[in-house]
């Protein structure tokens, strides 16, 4: 099979990316604006011997993908705003039990039922801290249909490599817009699969503190082990040993924090000589790049930084970018979320960091960002 050019929606590209990554199980509950992902996979998964199930709710869907992953199937679920809220409890279970799964959230307005058919970027903090307790998380944010395909593959790869849930945050604009994209030949894609143990079954420890990421056999492969959402020892059995729990919690966080070079990705545009930095992600970055180009034409030295990995947050790179300028604009389709992170990592110098925000279900247009660039210049 060679490369093929196709005209797809972001949601469809996400489903295609999942298939390219080797997904074998989808469980979900219909919700706008994510439903096309379920619809494509309900048709395509059986063709490759995979399984699709429409569960009774979002909570059940999240549980089912964890169960299927433990039985050895690469698994994915997709949802939007309110559904993402419902998934949080079992998302935390996947974090502490270190089960690889991919969760797609095609963001819509909120809180509550909000604006079901409109765009939003207001779940970015829920992606980080939605489930209770300290926990690691990876979240990726595509800005195009083509990137939705590739980041879905990458979401599976990171999930398998680090034994952790990975969240893919599309906004409704990315999920529903159509673009011509190139789907690569499967041989061109790097596909990562979880490590399986090579030791004897009686020697296997699913949560060995001495390893950052332990191998994970599937149920039924002869390594019988216990999985629990309770804090556990190396065997997976519950423990109240405070020293052990502290160490294991730190291991959970460090298995990502020690590998930021591998996990963090971003793109920069015209940042070498910039005097004003625009810091944008998802579909908003498309408006931002147009605004930056327009500003350049008008003689204003603007640049764009676009985080692709949103969590873990690219602290060091963001600090480096912000340090280059005195003025930073953070446009977001929410009333100010990631701007807080940008401020958190900024040096305490005279740097003016302002937002361009809307939460009315509409996308931020280039002119709004350009106006702010001009106002600051």
């Amino acid at each position, binding site marked *: 099979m060679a490369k093929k050019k196709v005209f797809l929606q972001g949601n469809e590209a996400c489903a295609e990316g999942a298939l390219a990554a080797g997904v074998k199980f989808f469980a979900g509950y219909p919700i706008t604006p994510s439903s096309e992902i379920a619809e494509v996979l309900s*048709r395509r998964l059986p063709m490759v011997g995979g399984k699709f199930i429409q569960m009774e709710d979002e909570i059940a869907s999240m*549980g089912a993908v964890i169960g*299927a992953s433990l*039985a050895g199937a690469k698994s994915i679920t997709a949802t939007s705003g309110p559904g993402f809220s419902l998934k949080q409890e079992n998302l935390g279970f996947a974090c502490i039990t270190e089960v690889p799964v991919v969760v797609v959230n095609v963001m819509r307005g909120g809180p509550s039922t909000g604006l079901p058919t409109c765009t939003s970027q207001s779940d970015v903090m829920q992606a980080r801290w939605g489930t209770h307790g300290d926990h690691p998380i990876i979240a990726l944010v595509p800005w195009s249909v083509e990137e939705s395909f590739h980041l879905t593959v990458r979401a599976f790869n990171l999930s398998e490599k680090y034994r952790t849930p990975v969240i893919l945050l599309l906004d409704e604009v990315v999920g529903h817009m159509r673009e011509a994209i190139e789907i690569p030949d499967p041989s061109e894609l790097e596909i990562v699969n979880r490590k399986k143990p090579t030791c004897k079954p009686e020697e296997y420890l699913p949560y060995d503190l001495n390893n950052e990421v332990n191998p994970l056999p599937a149920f*039924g492969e002869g390594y019988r*082990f216990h999985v629990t959402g309770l804090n556990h020892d190396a065997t997976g059995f519950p423990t109240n040993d405070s020293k052990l729990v502290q160490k294991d919690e730190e291991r959970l966080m460090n298995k990502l924090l020690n590998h930021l070079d591998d996990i963090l990705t971003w793109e920069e545009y015209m940042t070498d000589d910039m005097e004003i930095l625009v810091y944008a992600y998802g579909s908003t970055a498309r408006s931002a790049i147009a605004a930056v180009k327009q500003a350049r034409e008008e003689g204003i030295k603007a640049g764009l930084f676009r985080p692709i990995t949103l969590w873990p947050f690219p602290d060091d790179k963001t600090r480096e970018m912000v340090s280059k300028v005195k003025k930073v604009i953070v446009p977001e389709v929410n009333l100010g979320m990631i701007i807080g992170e940008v401020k958190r990592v900024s040096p305490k110098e005279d740097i003016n960091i302002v937002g361009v925000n809307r939460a009315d279900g509409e996308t931020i247009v280039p002119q709004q960002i350009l106006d702010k660039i001009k106002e600051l210049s």
Partner: protein
Amino acid sequence: MSIYEKYMRIDKFPHIWCPGCGYGIAMKSVMRAIDRVGIKNDDITMVSGIGCSSRTPGYLDFNTLHTTHGRALPFATGVKMAKPEMNIIVVTGDGDATAIGGNHFIHAARRNIDMTVLVYNNYIYGMTGGQYSPTTPQGKFATTAPYGNIEPPFDVCNLAAAAGASFVARGTVYHAVPLDKLIEQALRKKGFSVVEVLNPCPTSFGRRNKQPTPVIMMNWMKENCIPKVKYDKMSDEEKVGKIPIGVFVDIEKPEYTEQYQLLIDRAQSLAK
């Protein structure tokens, strides 16, 4: 090696259950039933939710999955769909299965996905200290029913039958030998099988309801749980306060993962 040694994680004992609790008896029944059917440890995934009963998988040497409160059935559904050859046993409590997990319970039964679900019913939330559950009888006392429970209870077996389970039975830990047989039948059944296991909770239920010792509670089960054959012949007056035990549903109907395999075959033949 005794069958208990064969199936237990001996190093994980002592267990956490209170003196007088019947979950150890139920666990032994499960092991004897598995041994009779002859399923290998590797071929069993035992899934549970949260609560006293749901700690069972920790003590047994299978692939074991102790999930979130009420959610055992969705996790079990995922395991079964990814590996249809796996034997799935779900251990859940009355609160876990019929309150927070009520929706999952009826839908798993409706799909008729092949698994054996043991609903351990002690009429109370034991692990959280004795709050009333959807099966707590009316008038009984609980920490959150200090004036007596006014809610009508669920009948777990009627609920499972109405939702579409292909095998439904009720036993008690007093009637341990018949319980072995009910669980064995459930394990052999292709489809969604439910065995409600009545269990005494002297600590959280009995103590507040004039049944303060394990012996009193066991005697209560002995006297009030009547084999279904006998119960069906009793008059309405005689039935008051009595609970039938035995098999209520044993029917053949299409099983979910088998139907799914047919769907895969159809999809693949269309794609050719």
